[in-house]
């Protein structure tokens, strides 16, 4: 669960020896067109325009480069710490993520600076302090390990690697360094024992000692490959000349993190001087080895080569000039891995990086034996990070797919695809910082937004077919499905339902257009209204949230009954009666311009006939209709909202009277987006 490379600690020797020069000189003179005479005011300075890094600078820059690669490739997952050792150990950073970054480390290193040359040689100055501290640091848990402990994990594995950059006189002193480290390691684990419980016990430690000397100096310390000192400790020793530490660490890091190198070749770049021609460059990048192995199959391997001056293998892949291949084009990708350039500051590297960071992606080609080319990888940047994608290059069973139009449902022509498309756009997801309040399951969160009634095709719906023709319909449907329908909405809906009834009784045709060659004939008027009512009823039924919805449902059911359609619902007849006689649907109020009061009363009459067992005379009906029409009582609205058996509160909306009597009929018709949510 926790791998060895999760915790790495650099111990940097900060004793006097490290202030000496690496003896590799960098010339600054070439910068000038003509070299200046030698007697320039360089008095007192031995530097001249040539300069050399100290051993310390070499050690710091190469170890920082090591963690640059680690943090680029495994952000937040692999941790590197620094400990500087002179008279004591100085902790540069901790396992905490806030200190696991380049700027923290380099700022801290600024305060350390190069060891002073003036301090006397003394046994107080030693790398041992740092090694001790490193073992303590290994025992400290990382955030991930703490988390494991919190979830109740009993045995938290804890391994690590210590890379010590120091300089020893000979093999004997190296041996004693090893021995001390081993002893301290055992002591540390003893401390962790049950009584003390200080930190985590260390399961295994890999100690890498880099013994560095200036260029031209031979060391008495012999190189030694990995050796098991104890079950807890493996040690390897490398002697390197100071200018070569970076190469050495680059070589080591490949094994430490199982990395692989890819050289992108044939990258065309324009020269600043002559913009017409372009030269080809190579850029070497690093990434997890899996990026290579994932694409390899039984009949396919990537060929590797060793670049001059390096000691590891690299896979050369050819840049494919991107042709209309945006990063949105979905590639069959089997693995994606962070990458980082080996030489982050070189011009070719930064050209490639900027090309990618600007949103373009690059396919990489592998030359195959047969001469055909295969794109095996893709480079692309997202969110400021560059990834290499391993593409599936083998033949896929998914190739040569039969088209979906040949499958089930493929020949249906009138799917409501544009409407669903609108819904998709409205339910496009965005990244949040915290889980939204009241969010249950992922699916439920979406479904609550989607319409509860959504016929899949046009030929099974009347409502959605008429949306474009009836300008009031979209808004009406929108009001109907409002979760928080209020009194005012209800009144408007009631009015629309009533209008609909009027046009039905006039025998008006519903304005169907030519959807799949359908144009109903006049004789089907009755059918269309019946279906219209039925669909409306279903729609409301699926959306019942408030008492207002219930009221609408009831009126609609009565209307259907009035129209001679059978209601399947066994609603008590009394409820119908009441909802109509006492509802605020009084004609005078809702339809000030209405002249067809007779049709209104007839409507009500027919309602009654259906709801109350039909044993009444015409006179009864008309007189009761007249009664209800003449009674302009707004005060009974409260009853609708009051459960049966309780007393209705009178004048609940008394203060809001003005609001209630808003002139109806002002219905916006451009509400397509809303209506499809119904």
């Amino acid at each position, binding site marked *: 669960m926790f791998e060895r490379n999760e915790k790495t600690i650099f111990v940097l020797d900060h004793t006097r020896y490290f202030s000496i020069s690496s003896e590799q000189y960098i010339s600054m003179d070439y910068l000038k067109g003509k070299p200046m005479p030698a007697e320039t005011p360089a008095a007192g300075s031995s530097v001249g325009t040539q300069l050399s890094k*100290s051993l310390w*600078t070499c050690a710091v820059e190469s170890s920082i480069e090591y963690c640059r690669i680690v943090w680029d490739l495994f952000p937040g997952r692999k941790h590197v710490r620094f400990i500087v050792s002179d008279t004591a150990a100085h902790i540069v950073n901790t396992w905490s993520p806030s200190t696991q970054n380049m700027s923290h480390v380099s700022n801290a290193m600024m305060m350390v600076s190069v060891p002073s040359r003036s301090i006397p040689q003394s046994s107080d100055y030693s790398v041992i302090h740092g090694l001790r501290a490193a073992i303590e640091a290994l025992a400290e848990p990382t955030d991930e390990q703490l988390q494991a402990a919190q979830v109740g994990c009993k045995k938290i594995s804890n391994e690590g690697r210590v890379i010590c950059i120091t300089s020893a006189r000979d093999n004997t002193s190296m041996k004693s360094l090893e021995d001390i480290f081993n002893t301290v390691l055992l002591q540390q684990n003893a401390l962790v024992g049950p009584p003390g419980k200080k930190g985590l016990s260390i399961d295994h430690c890999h100690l890498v000692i880099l013994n560095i000397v200036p260029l031209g100096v031979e060391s008495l310390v012999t190189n030694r490959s990995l050796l098991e000192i104890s079950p807890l400790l493996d040690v390897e020793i490398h002697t390197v000349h100071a200018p070569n530490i970076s190469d050495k660490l680059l070589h080591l890091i490949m094994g430490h993190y199982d990395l692989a190198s890819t050289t992108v070749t044939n990258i065309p770049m324009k020269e600043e001087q002559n913009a017409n021609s372009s030269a080809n460059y190579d850029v070497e990048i690093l990434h997890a080895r899996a990026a290579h192995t994932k694409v390899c199959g039984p009949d396919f391997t990537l060929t590797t080569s060793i670049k001059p001056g390096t000691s590891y293998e690299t896979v050369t892949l050819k840049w494919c000039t991107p042709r209309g291949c945006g990063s949105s084009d979905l590639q069959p990708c089997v693995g994606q891995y962070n990458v980082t350039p080996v030489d982050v500051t070189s011009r070719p590297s930064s050209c490639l990086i900027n090309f990618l960071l600007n949103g373009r992606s690059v396919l990489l080609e592998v030359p195959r034996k047969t001469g055909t080319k295969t794109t095996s990888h893709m480079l*692309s940047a997202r969110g400021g990070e560059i990834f290499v994608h391993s593409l599936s290059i083998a033949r896929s069973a998914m190739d040569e797919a039969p088209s979906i139009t040949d499958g089930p449902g493929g020949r249906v022509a009138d799917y409501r695809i544009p409407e669903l498309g609108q819904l998709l756009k409205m339910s496009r997801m965005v990244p949040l910082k915290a889980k939204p309040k009241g969010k249950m399951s*992922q699916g439920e969160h979406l479904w609550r937004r989607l319409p509860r009634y959504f016929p899949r095709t046009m030929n099974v719906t009347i409502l959605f077919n008429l949306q474009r023709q009836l300008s009031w319909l979209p808004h009406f449907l929108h009001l109907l499905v409002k979760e928080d329908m209020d009194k005012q909405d209800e009144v408007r809906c009631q009015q629309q339902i009533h209008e609909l009834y009027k046009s039905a009784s006039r025998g008006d045709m519903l304005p169907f257009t030519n959807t799949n060659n359908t144009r109903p004939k006049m004789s*089907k008027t009755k059918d269309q209204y019946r279906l219209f009512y039925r669909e409306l009823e279903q729609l409301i039924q699926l959306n019942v949230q408030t008492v207002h919805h219930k009221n609408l449902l009831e009126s609609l059911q009565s209307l259907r009954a009035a129209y001679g359609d059978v209601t399947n619902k066994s609603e008590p007849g009394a409820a119908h009666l009441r909802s109509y006689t006492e509802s605020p649907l009084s004609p005078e109020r809702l339809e000030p311009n209405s002249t067809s009061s007779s049709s209104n009363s007839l409507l009500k009459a027919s309602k009654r006939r259906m709801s109350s067992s039909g044993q009444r005379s015409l006179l009864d009906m008309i007189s009761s209709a007249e009664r209800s029409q003449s009674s302009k009582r707004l005060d009974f609205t409260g009853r609708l909202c009051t459960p049966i058996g309780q007393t209705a509160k009178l004048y609940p909306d008394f203060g809001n009277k003005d609001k209630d009597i808003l002139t109806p009929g002002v219905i916006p018709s451009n509400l397509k987006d809303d209506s499809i949510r119904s």
Partner: protein
Amino acid sequence: MPTIIALDASLSMLRPVPGRNEHTYISLAIKGIQHLLDNLTASGKLEHLALVVYTTVCELKVDFTRDYDQIRQAIKKIEPLDKACLMTMLKTSVSLMATWGTQNLLQLVVFTDCGPGFGSTSLAAFLEGYTGKEADPEYAWLKLLAAYHLNFICLGMHGDLYFTRGVTLHQQLLDNAALKGQLFMTKPTKGAEAGEVTTSGSHKSELGRTALFELIERLCESSYKSTEVTLKCGHYFRMEGQVLLWPPTVPYEQAPLYGGEPIVRHIEQRIDVCGFLSLSDIGSPATLSRHWVLAKVDREKPTRRSGGLAAVAKPAKLTLDTSNPHYELEKLEQDVRDFYMKDNKDAEESGDDGDVSVVLKHSSTPQTEQQKDTLCVLLHGALKLENMAALVLLGERWYGFMYAYNDSKKKSNFMLNVLPPGSNVIPWLGDLELLGFPEDVPPGESASFPVRSERRSYSQSSVVWIRQASLQSDVQKVLRHAKKMPDKTQHFYKELNRIRRAALALGFVELLEALALLIEKETAQLTLNGVGSECTLQLQHAATELRKTSNRDIKSTIVPLQKASAADSTSSAAPPTSAGSYLY
């Protein structure tokens, strides 16, 4: 699932099947292959099949294809000869399968009478040679074979010793070489003991067409069944439906977070659509597997075959079940459909009594599969239209996404990409559990893709001086700015401070002195060339500041000399901005 159908064409296959005079083993095997093809055709002709015939040699008769007729034709022309050598066939299969890589599930269906082979090429001889030499490179191909699924259709009778011995050897091969495989055999009939079957010609033996077909059906059930799940995209019942995933999903072995046995995970029976993302936001993330999403068609249900005029009278009622919770809605849909249809009819034959003609028309053209609307096609269409993908939940913290996939031939399909389990699998989308809708974004905040990562070394101006050239080019840059000083004052100091900070971090104090020296040289040269005093003053100031040990502090920054710009402002062109307030 690319499949090689391997047919044993040894001479022993020419034997007549005991008790079945009409069949030889080979003719039975051919019937079996045909039945397999029939079954795979019925499930959509999705599998790529190849046909090989093996004796001492193994011959590829039909290369991988979805055109099953090629195989039907080829099996008619097979002439048995020679002896069977199973190992040759298996080895050839490995090389034939190579093009499919490791991402596909590979299958082998072998039709054989389980002959053990003869001499050096026999199974027994192979097992003898193999035991103890598993790691030998000679047997490396068996490792590849171990990834395949081997299905043996064993043609033979339990009473037949020759057959049972062969079967045992086949099983030994699977066990010893650690191959995944299954032997399909007929069940022994009651009382069909050894000898009895072979003699009694009148009795039907346990091996026959029906028995064989059962084996094939068992094979299809175990190895060729698509994963069937419910896709749910909302509360409305039409936005939910049974779908098939092909190729079938494979269980995912998830390493536990903190030690212990790996957990084998399957996708849930119901996969929920959680929301929609634009394809350009998703990019090309690593996926475990890809599957086609196909609407499931109910074949089991008896279609309107009830026949008779009574049934024809009310066709709608027949298909609708009143106990169905969605009866009302389904009936409404049916009625609306009829309503539109009726109009069509009327338009054609004006004046007829609608009801009767509708009914007739309806029953005479029952809806075919392709004409029945499905959720898959609707969702596919909308996703394609908007260039979006649907994020789906496959299990606890396990996601995938569905989208319209266009192949090179512009054929479009509905595809599911299964992501690796976990909610943080696509770095640029962030935690998938934290995705929400625009309304969920707190007021004043904005949310959009991609989720930006911390800056990596390549996206900030990092300083790495491991190669001399990069150090030299950084120094060169400062000097370049120095030459164009009054205009580039700010750039000069910015670069100067960048180098200075890097040098301090690396303990590279030698560079500070060297840089001061270079600046002084530059000053001298510029003075010779008669460049304005502003520039030289600034350079001298910079060199002095670089040398000051008090400036070797993390907080200190070298700022431009203010007096110089003030004094010089009359003679030279005024610097673009007041340098005094600029901090680097």
